[in-house]
């Protein structure tokens, strides 16, 4: 009978599925690694897009620059073997490494380096970090392994900037297609990208440096935090450098198969206020708002307490950091008193715009409650990323907002003319100018500390906490970055424990 034939076929199919399901998963071979990331990169060329998701795949793995930035946040020579700076600080002579090839065999020479830098700073460049190349006046190639860069004026952070992902080296033949098929000089070469699912790299055997410890690297794209947890627990993924649900870290801490490594990022989570608008143009009001902020409560609610409270726009992990959290401590009565002094004893109503990240939304809700305690009624509104960028950041059409500023070494942004917060203090600008020109590390440190103090007192924004890097990975892995001084998943020193 036709019915029973169909039934047989269906049963057979089910049996086959059950059998294949029961077979044990292939044991993870010890020389490949699968990392999970929560955001899929738009493409794979960091020199034409700002997204951190691109850097998290290709920085130091596929692409390298003349310099690179290490896990300690300091730049070190990569494709440049050594760098000599002229006494007047305007000329840098890079001696390039010999025998370096791109993944397609093209040799890396000073001509390639000049091409890469000119591409980044050229008139048609769509490089998001074009600002970094502004100080460059001329680039010369006196020898195949020598590159001479002359600046218009000294720039103390020039070498650091050359370690940025915006300054990676590309080859002329493959640069245009770098978005889809990135060809770099790094220890891993690009294999394939199954959109929405994974990106695969494999070891580049002709790498100039120390051979990579993994023959294959797979980046799995898993946006949903619950799914990330499931993927880790079932072994689909070996490591999640930034696991999206900090409140679930305790589960992994208790599990001997995993290690939980919480580190620092360059992301300051802050509460910017529109200094051009009333009532925030009054410094007393801004100080009152900041004194209404219970940093511990916000930290606990937004990132399960794994963040670090901050008092100014500077990361606690940096050696030049000053702990200024005591300048405007949490004090509801003092906040109310200051508001009364400013003529706002009965409080006021304002709009608090939130970008859609989990930590900004959670912070926003807690902040709303804290503001209510001092009589400020904050109406919350969630904007999508592009809308926040257009309306808040470009047009400065906002009252208050919450954001994590993740660019490294960005304290000098407050000196910009068009900075959305409207902080225009000339003394700060003078300090920023000093910072960019000075070459002496002691002077740098002094200036940075002075800038931190000024911001902590003027509070164009309230400084809440530093975003943590909540990493969960197999206890058998070593060498993965604990902190995130730049957005990257540098695998060059990572390996499985023997």
């Amino acid at each position, binding site marked *: 009978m036709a019915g029973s034939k169909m039934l047989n076929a269906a049963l057979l199919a089910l049996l086959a599925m059950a059998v294949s399901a029961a077979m044990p998963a292939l044991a993870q071979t010890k020389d490949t690694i699968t990392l999970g990331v929560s955001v899929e990169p738009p493409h794979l060329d960091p020199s034409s897009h700002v997204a951190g998701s691109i850097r998290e795949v290709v920085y130091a793995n596929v692409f390298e620059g003349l310099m690179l930035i290490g896990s300690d946040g300091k730049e070190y020579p990569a494709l440049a073997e050594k760098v000599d700076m002229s006494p007047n600080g305007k000329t840098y002579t890079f001696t390039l490494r010999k025998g370096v090839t791109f993944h397609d065999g093209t040799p890396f020479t000073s001509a390639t380096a000049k091409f890469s830098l000119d591409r980044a700073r050229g008139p048609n460049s769509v490089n998001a970090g074009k600002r970094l190349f502004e100080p460059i006046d001329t680039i010369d190639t006196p020898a195949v392994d020598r590159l001479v860069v002359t600046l218009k004026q000294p720039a103390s952070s020039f070498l650091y900037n050359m370690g940025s992902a915006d300054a990676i080296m590309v080859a002329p033949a493959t640069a245009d297609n770098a978005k889809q098929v990135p060809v770099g000089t790094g220890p891993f070469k690009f294999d394939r990208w199954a959109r*929405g699912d994974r990106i695969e790299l494999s070891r580049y055997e002709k790498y100039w440096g120390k051979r990579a410890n993994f023959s294959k690297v797979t980046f799995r794209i898993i946006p949903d935090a619950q799914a990330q947890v499931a993927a880790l627990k079932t072994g689909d993924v070996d490591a999640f450098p930034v696991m999206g649900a900090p409140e679930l870290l305790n589960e992994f801490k208790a599990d001997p198969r995993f290690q939980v490594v919480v580190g620092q990022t360059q992301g300051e989570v802050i509460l910017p206020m529109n200094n051009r608008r009333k009532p925030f143009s009054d410094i007393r009001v801004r100080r009152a708002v900041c004194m209404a902020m219970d940093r511990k409560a916000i930290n606990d609610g937004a990132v399960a307490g794994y963040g670090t409270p901050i008092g100014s726009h500077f990361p606690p992990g940096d050696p030049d950091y000053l702990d200024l959290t005591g300048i405007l401590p949490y004090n509801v009565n003092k906040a109310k008193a200051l508001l009364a002094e400013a003529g706002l004893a009965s409080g006021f109503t304002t709009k608090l715009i939130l970008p859609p990240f989990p930590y900004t939304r959670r912070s926003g809700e807690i902040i709303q409650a804290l503001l209510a305690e001092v009589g400020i009624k904050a109406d919350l509104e969630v904007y999508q990323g592009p809308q926040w960028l257009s309306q808040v950041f470009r047009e400065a059409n906002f009252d208050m907002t919450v954001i994590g500023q993740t660019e490294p070494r960005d304290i000098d942004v407050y000196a910009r003319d068009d900075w959305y917060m409207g902080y225009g203090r000339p003394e700060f600008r003078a300090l920023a100018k000093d910072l960019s020109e000075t070459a002496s590390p002691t002077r740098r440190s002094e200036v940075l500390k002075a800038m931190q103090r000024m911001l902590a007192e003027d509070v164009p924004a309230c400084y809440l906490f530093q975003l943590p890097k909540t990493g969960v990975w197999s206890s058998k892995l070593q060498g993965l970055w604990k902190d995130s001084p730049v957005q990257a998943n540098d695998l060059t020193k990572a390996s499985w424990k023997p």
Partner: protein
Amino acid sequence: MVRFVISRLFGLVATLFATAAVAFFLLEVIPGDPALDMLGTEVREDTLAALRVQLGLDRPLWLRFLQWIGGFFTGDLGMSYRYRVPVSELIADPLRVTLPLGLFAIVITVAIALPLGALAARYRGKALDVFVTLLSQIGLAIPNFWFAVLLTLVFSINLGWFAAGGFPGWSAGFFEALKALLLPALSLALPQAAIIARVTRSAVLEVLDADFARTARAKGLTRNATLWKHVLRNAMIPVVTVMGTQFTFLLAGSIIVENVFYLPGLGRLIFQAITQRDLVVIRNVVMLIAGLIMVMNFLVDISYAILNPRLRQR
């Protein structure tokens, strides 16, 4: 019959055009600049302008609309803002995940719901009927993403029978790929099955009381033969109607379920496109989904005419 089909087709095309116009112009009105989003807060003005030209954002709105519509005939649907690849390429792979997933979910739904609904009607009032009604109540109440997480917890994490998610690709083997779609399809199928079971039950109940059913029994047909040979076929019309409308919810549900199981499907694609304001991808996927739904409804209309010859006269 031919006139019936032609008039329906006409309506389909007109609706599609209206949808395209609404999708295009509505999306353009929303604030936010794709170029700015791609280059970030540190960008300089000239870089921004250069990118806008590259993306074609400097051309007038109506021209871009017409070029897009024309593209439906040439296959050139535009370039994704974010990925910088042709949209047709971008949609191809996710389609090979979402369509099979949807079909799988429909197969499971029909396989579960029709027999259960029919049997519940046949044994109305008895234990089986109560049980099926209870199950369908629960199935309606449970959100499919919660059910998805539950399935993952039990079958992936605890029992280890399935991966927690992901799709190996059809190249990894038919059964491997199907295995990866099983839990997601079940999550999608559950609320659908609950609804279809109820609709089947009430449709069958109605038909069971009809004269011709009683005639069949009087003729000497067994209860079962009556049910499967005569009653069910006639009860299909309301069931097919509901299945047609449920298809929409199936596609919508796939956005959430694909996220939970990190499947690289159409739902995930459009979800990401929305958060990244990739207008080109959004409007094309909106058109695709709208098109699929309209085709589905069109087929439902045609199936009426097949199931019920009296409708062919219209």
